[in-house]
């Protein structure tokens, strides 16, 4: 009843692909493993023969600017992201989310790759990445491709990744320019599982007194990570004031599906608290974008 029989530590993507092709199955890539190993141990994940440890693949541990984009390797521990000056500058919402995940001993091994591959619709890292317009780079024996979050997430716990064939290499985020800023916040419940009742990330660009562009992500607002596109449409091009905010809120509440999670939060509680959270996050991002 070992959690795994074979443990492979490829150093390059091609070694990883080789392992995908030849290692005993079932197999699964492992990054931090902070969720995966517990899922395996507690029977939420079907047993595997092989773990392919992707934390030593050089390409996947980079965090760097590439042209107009920031690249964050899927195996970069979230603590490194939280403290990285490039990330703080170009993806503040993400660093704020990373700082809130578990404690430092978990953050030092947990990764965004694992977070996203797990495909939970409200994971802190995922929600921040969504608002930051991240694209995932996927590698397989056929080569690499980029995929938007919209295509990546199919449903709760379900991603478009082909299991045992594909790997998330990293994430590309547009780098931040002047008058662009982001923010992430969440609301927790002190009892039970350490999942937020509600989290929210906003990225926006300001043009003098108006919102030039905005992206709003809220979790859990549906079966996949939720973008409040109608609220975004309402706010885009508008000055930020009470009236427009009210309209945006209305659009958000009409579009989001706030469900009831037993022992965590009821749907109407979420609808109630999203008001303050949304306002707070938008206003903070707005101030930062000055």
């Amino acid at each position, binding site marked *: 009843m070992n959690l795994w029989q074979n443990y492979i*530590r490829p150093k390059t993507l091609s070694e990883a692909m080789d392992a995908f092709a030849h290692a005993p199955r079932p197999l699964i890539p492992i990054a931090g493993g902070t969720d995966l190993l*517990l899922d395996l141990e507690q029977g939420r994940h079907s047993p595997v023969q092989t773990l392919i440890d992707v934390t030593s693949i050089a390409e996947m541990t980079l965090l760097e600017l590439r042209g107009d984009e920031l690249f964050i390797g899927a195996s970069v521990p979230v603590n490194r992201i939280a403290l990285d000056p490039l990330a703080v500058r170009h993806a503040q919402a993400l660093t704020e989310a990373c700082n809130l995940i578990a404690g*430092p*001993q978990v953050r*030092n*091994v947990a990764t965004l790759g694992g977070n996203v591959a797990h495909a939970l619709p409200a994971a802190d890292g995922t929600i921040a990445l969504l608002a930051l317009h991240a694209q995932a780079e996927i590698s397989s024996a056929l080569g690499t491709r980029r995929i938007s979050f919209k295509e990546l997430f199919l449903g709760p716990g379900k991603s478009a990744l082909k299991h045992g064939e594909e790997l998330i290499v990293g994430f590309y985020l547009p780098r931040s320019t002047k008058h662009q800023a982001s923010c992430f916040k969440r609301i927790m419940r*002190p*009892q*039970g*599982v350490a999942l937020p009742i509600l989290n929210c990330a906003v990225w926006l660009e300001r043009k003098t007194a108006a919102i030039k562009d905005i992206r709003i992500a809220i979790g859990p607002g549906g079966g996949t990570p939720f973008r409040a596109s109608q609220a975004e449409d309402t706010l885009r091009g508008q000055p930020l004031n009470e009236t427009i905010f009210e309209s945006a809120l209305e659009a958000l509440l009409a579009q989001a599906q706030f469900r009831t999670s037993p022992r965590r939060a009821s749907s109407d509680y979420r609808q109630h608290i999203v008001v303050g959270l949304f306002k707070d996050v938008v206003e903070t991002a707005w101030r930062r974008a000055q």
Partner: protein
Amino acid sequence: MNNNISLIVNEQSYTLESIPGETLSTLLRERLRLTGTKIGCEEAECGACTVLVDGEPVVSCIYPAERADGKSILTIEGLAEHVHEEMKLHPLQEAFVEHGAVQCGFCIPGQIMTAYALLNRNPNPTSDDVRFALKDTLCRCAGYPTIENAILAAAESLRTGEPIKKPHIPDSIHEHKSVGHTHTRHDGMEKVVGTAVFTDDLVFDGMLYAKARRAMIPHGFLTKLDISKARALPGVVAVLTAEDIPGEKTHGLVTFDWPVMVGIGERVRYVGDAIAIVAAETQQIADQASALIEAEFDLQPVITNPVQARQEGVPQIHEKGNLLKHIKVRKGDMEKGFAESDIILEHTFHTQTTDHAFLEPECSIGVPLADGRMEIYCGSQIPYQDREQVARVMGWDQSRVRIVGQLMGGGFGGKEDVMGQIHVAMLADVTKRPVKLLFDRHESLLVHPKRHATQIRVKIGAKKDGRLVASETELYGDTGAYASLGEKVMTRATTHSAGPYDIEHVRADCYAMYTNNPPAGAFRGFGVTQSAFAVESMMDMLAEKLNIEPVELRRMNALHVGSITNTGQELRESVGLMECIDKVSSAMRQVSGLSQDELFKPHAAPDTPQLVRSWGFASAYKNTGLGGGAPDKSGADVELYADGTFQVRSSSAEMGQGLVTVMRLVVAEEMSVPPEQVKVLVMDTDLAPNGGPTTASRQTYVTGNASRYAAKTLRDEITATMAEKFDVRPEQIRFENGIVHVNGHSLTYAEIYKEMTTLGKHPRVRYEYEAPKTQPLGTGGDMHFAFSFGVQAAEVEVNKLTGEVRVLKVISANDVGMAVNPLGLQGQVEGGVMMGLGHALTEEFIVENGYVVTDHLARYRVPGIMLTPEITSIIVEHATAEGPYGAKGVGEICSIPTTPAITNAIYNAVGVRIDRTPVDQELIAREIWEREEK
């Protein structure tokens, strides 16, 4: 495809063959025998297993060992420097000991390693930095303030090169040489360097590993049990079932109603009932074999709560029915009382089940000896009752069993019942090999007894001026599948259900009911935590109705010397309640800068009007000792050795609370030696007399007294011997600073030893102390020999939009009679507040239709350092004449008023009355928005 793992651990290189499925913590603990790294949960929740990998702290319990290949690991064992064979502690280690941050010690390696990484990165951290770094490193003794202070002190010492600054802990007001002064733990050193041995750290030659197969159904009859596949699995050495039980089939602490294993045709009463036990060559084989056991059940309807359990026509779980005990308190005349009342209020409260979540899961090792005896290594709060229960089931004389208690990683009442002790004895007896049974966190959560969930209806009558006239309470307690200490716990809940108040007419009825939930038993507070929440909420409701200031209402009714308690006991001394009330009240004003009138009003936080702050207040009392007519005894040995050192021994439990320091200080006091000259041995039924159960805040009192009188008797013997030898009057012999002065001669204790033994007198005394007699409930008279009193005030901040609650400050005053061990006392008080805070805000053990929902630590929130408020401890010392130097218990009282202080503060902040714990922030938000919509 298995490779070697090459790694550096504590600057030493190793190359090891990789083992499939191995984690770094297992490699460290089992292959390198570096057992300083502890396993609390194996689910990356508690942080006890933290080690540094290439300088970064990680949880080693879910870190694949193979990933450590090529990396450098630092564990707690690698922190201290060895200079010329002398160990030089790292300043963090030293500071943890000096500041009293070490209690049970189980979490300490994780705390220190995490802090070490922080200080490497940030040599000058703020309190916030420390808290952020230690966010998920749990301490259930909850010495968070001392941990924080220790880290800050170590950081300063590292920066300046100056010695560690010591904490400022006031001495007792009662002046003595040793007792009443701060002294560090004698086991602090081994706990900070990682050499402290807890049960799971032990291995024996040829040791087998055990696993109990649990029923995993809440109620039903076992109809079929097939162990053949398990038995056939290679590596399995024994599979035993109920048929193999040699002696009595049940265990228990008061009532023997808990089956060692449920046999075919017998009733399963909760998910944790054992139906078979396995011993195998490895833990993995044992686990696998357990899973291969096939069982079938005839499922029965499930009794899910105590109110349902008492209804007519429901299934009866035990032969005697579902009622464990109807407990009654009667005083005065209720009809008269309510008739005389100007106002009558009635309300029903509910409290949840909680788990002790001691960080060290249960572990027992049975070791068969060549002479037919059996040693059992375990952490136990009642070693002698473990011995009795094991012997009873084995069909042996008790002398055949020796309980060898190990360091305990917390108990809090949760290690009073036997868990694996009997099972390992059975397996070790059959296999003739040592057998270890270690619970994982999952099994610990499923199986051991919890805090009773209760429903408490309070009806209270008062005069217009606030004087309480009548109190009627009706309690239901969920004692789960087996009695454990349920009857005693609910008795305490009942007798304390009218609060620490002088009330003429009192009636209380309690129904302690069996259900199909996990059993409930002892848990710090012992029922009073629950009833204090109800009555103290009611006091604030009454204060509001009568428009009387809540502190004043309590002052007006507080028990005082001369009061008669609900059970008819006259309080003749040591009632420090009023002083606690006064001191907390004035500290509240001082800390907040508010006037008394302003304290309990809502105050919006500056700049953030949705955050509203206010204070809440609560009082409580709690008996010291078993009471109710139970003989309350403890034995202690004090022995002088040839080198002039002493040893004091008692089979009482040290679970982190600090009894060992108390015993040491007491003997040092009596023998006039420095405390370092006294060694302490506890929890060994062969080597130390029975100290009785470590429960009911009793050990400082009873074992403190036993140690004291044993030492005193030894001193008298020395005096008598020396008087005779030197032909002087006994009064002329003085004991001072480790020297015995006899008429011009000054003898060291080493010389005294020689003198005594030469005369054929072995300097060793056993003393059995018996506390003052008590009376059973219902007979009047003294039900308890002492009470401790406690008052707490909490300042909370409530977010009106989300309902989120933060506790900002807590002031806790406790009348402990006398502060024998001020540093340990501080740890108890702070930890008590945090456990109370957990009960109020974070903790809920959830069972649905008999199935445990909170079966992993990830679903059960133990408060961490981030939730720790600023805690002010005020010690009140109304000495009790019989207690050692005036001391009475503190372990429980310091945790009892926290919950109602917090919930009363929430009401004062936002007007939402919490009548069900834990506090539901959604309910707060909902009440506020519904009110505002109106």
